[in-house]
């Protein structure tokens, strides 16, 4: 399908203040026309009925782990991008903590080539900051940029050595690409497996204090100020981090930040079982644990935090302190999670539940739909310098997501396209479903009911 007509959809584009029912014509991979229903200039093309559905710019995920090369048993570019398509994402940025890590032009080339061959959606690789992600010496950032890396990150680790990070920031300026920092002080978080709080005290698990993140956020902001380079902070989780970024932005520093769907909707109590932690549901303090406690599906780094943190992240998103929502999609094998909590892998398979989880916030009135869509589209696009190619605009690439904000469904990980079935939302009934995803005019995903 490179030609199609979407009819009677609710055309929704927060970047242009667009929100009205209309038709949209796709031709040659681009949006050819949009306007009043029935007035399209070339109506004899395949028609997609979009009544009562929201038609918006395709979602962009700044942060996901496709695991290829090296860990194809967890995910591949093929399965990961299919998961993205099902989640309404038309573009995903692939983090470089693969095996080997994406620290060379050849590795970036490989990912791009595989993506062209097998990718369902657009894949933008991110290159390493340091060689082998070891935090010892800079990777060849110029070569990575030339090969097509869109940002640099040692995600999974902070660059522990502040001088090395300073150099990375200075050096990256010449390419105009952002440095994405995973903010975590490895000494403060050592051996931690969840948030340090009442739940970890109750369960006897080693905690990761909020300060493990905040001390690095503060340090990185100071280095961004020193160098004037573009710094993007990955998956913020604490109220303190939000406040630090807010103040940095007030100073006019070129800092951006992201938050994940799980950190906006789940709290640390989720580790105690599926009935707790979702949208601020906190168990009574005398609640006995049931045998589903120590739920490894809620083990993620950075960890799920407290209701106060979730609220602060939500505020940060609403006031623009946080620019984007990114999934941090981290697929794992069953055996990586079906084990002792201390030994389980960190991470949540998030691409296929992101929209529905976030719409829960819209449904309960905690988030505006336009803020949500903005954070999934223009927010990340601006960080990647792709905002001019984004939006429901004539002439723009036809990257479009169509979803039903009301459709209810039960999360069944076995039905995921992702190889990673590790989600804390398994069995949850969510409202809001992706119905179709279009990349460059190609229909890459369509729900059976459409």
């Amino acid at each position, binding site marked *: 399908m490179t030609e199609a007509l979407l009819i009677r959809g609710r055309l929704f584009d927060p970047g242009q203040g667009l929100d009205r029912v209309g038709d949209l014509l796709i031709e040659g991979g681009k949006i050819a026309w949009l306007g009043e229903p029935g007035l399209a200039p070339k109506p004899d093309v395949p028609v997609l009925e979009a009544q009562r559905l929201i038609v918006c710019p395709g979602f962009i995920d700044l942060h996901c782990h496709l695991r290829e090369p090296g860990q194809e048993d967890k995910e591949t570019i093929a399965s990961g991008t299919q998961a993205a398509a099902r989640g309404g994402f038309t573009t995903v940025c692939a983090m470089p903590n693969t095996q080997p890590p994406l620290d060379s032009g050849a590795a970036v080339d490989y990912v791009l080539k595989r993506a062209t061959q097998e990718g369902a959606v657009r894949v933008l690789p991110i290159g390493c900051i340091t060689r082998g992600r070891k935090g010892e010496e800079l990777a060849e950032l110029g070569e990575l940029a030339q090969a097509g890396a869109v940002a640099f990150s040692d995600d999974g680790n902070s660059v522990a050595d502040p001088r090395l990070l300073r150099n990375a920031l200075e050096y990256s300026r010449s390419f105009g690409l952002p440095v994405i920092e995973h903010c975590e002080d490895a000494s403060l978080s050592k051996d931690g497996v969840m948030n340090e709080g009442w739940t970890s005290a109750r369960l006897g698990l080693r905690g990761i204090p909020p300060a493990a993140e905040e001390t690095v956020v503060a340090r990185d902001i100071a280095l961004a100020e020193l160098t004037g380079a573009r710094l993007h902070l990955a998956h913020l989780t604490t109220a303190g981090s939000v406040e630090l970024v807010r103040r940095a932005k007030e100073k006019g520093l070129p800092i951006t930040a992201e938050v994940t769907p799980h950190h906006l909707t789940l709290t640390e109590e989720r580790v105690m079982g599926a009935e707790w932690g979702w949208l601020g549901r906190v168990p009574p*303090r005398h609640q006995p644990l049931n045998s589903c406690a120590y739920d490894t599906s809620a083990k993620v780094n950075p960890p799920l935090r407290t209701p106060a943190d979730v609220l602060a992240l939500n505020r940060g998103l609403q006031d623009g302190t946080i620019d984007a929502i990114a999934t941090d999609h981290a697929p794992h094998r069953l055996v990586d999670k079906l084990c*002792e909590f201390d030994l389980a892998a960190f991470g949540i398979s998030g691409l296929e539940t992101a929209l529905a989880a976030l719409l829960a916030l819209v449904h309960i009135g905690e988030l505006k739909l336009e803020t949500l869509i903005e954070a999934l589209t223009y927010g990340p696009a601006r960080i990647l310098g792709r905002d001019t190619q984004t939006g429901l605009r004539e002439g723009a690439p036809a990257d479009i997501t169509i979803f039903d904000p009301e459709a209810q469904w039960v999360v069944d990980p076995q039905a995921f396209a992702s190889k990673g079935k590790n989600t804390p939302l398994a069995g949850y009934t969510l409202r809001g479903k992706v119905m179709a995803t279009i990349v460059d005019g190609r229909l890459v995903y369509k729900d059976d009911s459409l």
Partner: protein
Amino acid sequence: MRIREQSQLYPPITKPTASPWQHRHILDLDDFSRQEMEFLFHTADAMKEILGREIKRVPTLRGKTVVTMFYEPSTRTRLSFEMAAKSLGADVTSITAATSSAVKGESLVDTVRTIQALGSDVLVMRHPCSGAPYLVAQQVASSVVNAGDGWHAHPTQALLDLYTIRSHHGGVEGAKAVIIGDILHSRVARSNIWGLTIMGAQVVLCGPPTLLPRFWGQAYPQAIIEPDIEAALADADIIMVLRLQRERQQGGLLPSIEEYVRLYQLDERRLALAKPDALVMHPGPVNEGIEIAPEVAHGAQSVIEEQVANGVAVRMALLYLLAGGAH
């Protein structure tokens, strides 16, 4: 003066007649009712009688298999469980980390599924990871008894502690129970907070701030935190002293063992602040001269050895209640 247990020749036969027992697994004490604990102690009394006989063995669990699976060295607890199981006539199989497939990299889930396939009625497990018994309970059909998981829980230790207190003071209702030491890393403390408060005691926690972080007040609101050891011990009825691991000092949580001794050791002077008939308890093994002075550990108020003896009776009662019927 301590109240000694009186042996009743003809106890009223109106004691419990219907079993309030609800448990299939013993993972922690947080899901116990007071009635269940009383019932368990009542059953343990009958076990104590068996242990007082010349032939300390009954055939009750003949044909049942109890597997002890210890991923952490603990001769005391494992022996206690094995004696309990053998006294009830069960077959006992032991798996220790060295003999299990853990060294070969087999996962815990695979190991317990194998044990299940070979047939076990009760799986007694100790594991260094908090929550491991919860994972196992989801994977097997047999009853799971937590014999200590990480920092989280050690329910049978807390039960034998309560049983020991009951045999001296009749019960813990309204008693002040002080737990001193490394609360943060203590599964014994966590289970005892539940057990003691369910039975009606007021728990007071006391230890260095690095070993008792601020979230304890939220995690265990039923317990009071009293950093000053002298205030904590004032008028206490029960004093539980926790073992101090030397790693805590190496881990930077304490400046020195000597300073810990100075600030937190239970010695005779501090013990005098508690009620005169206060019981001194310790889950063992005791570091004499560190968390507790030798003269206190061996003093008139110490019931440390009794705790060990009661452990077998309490574990027998648990095994009987878990495996004695049909499930």
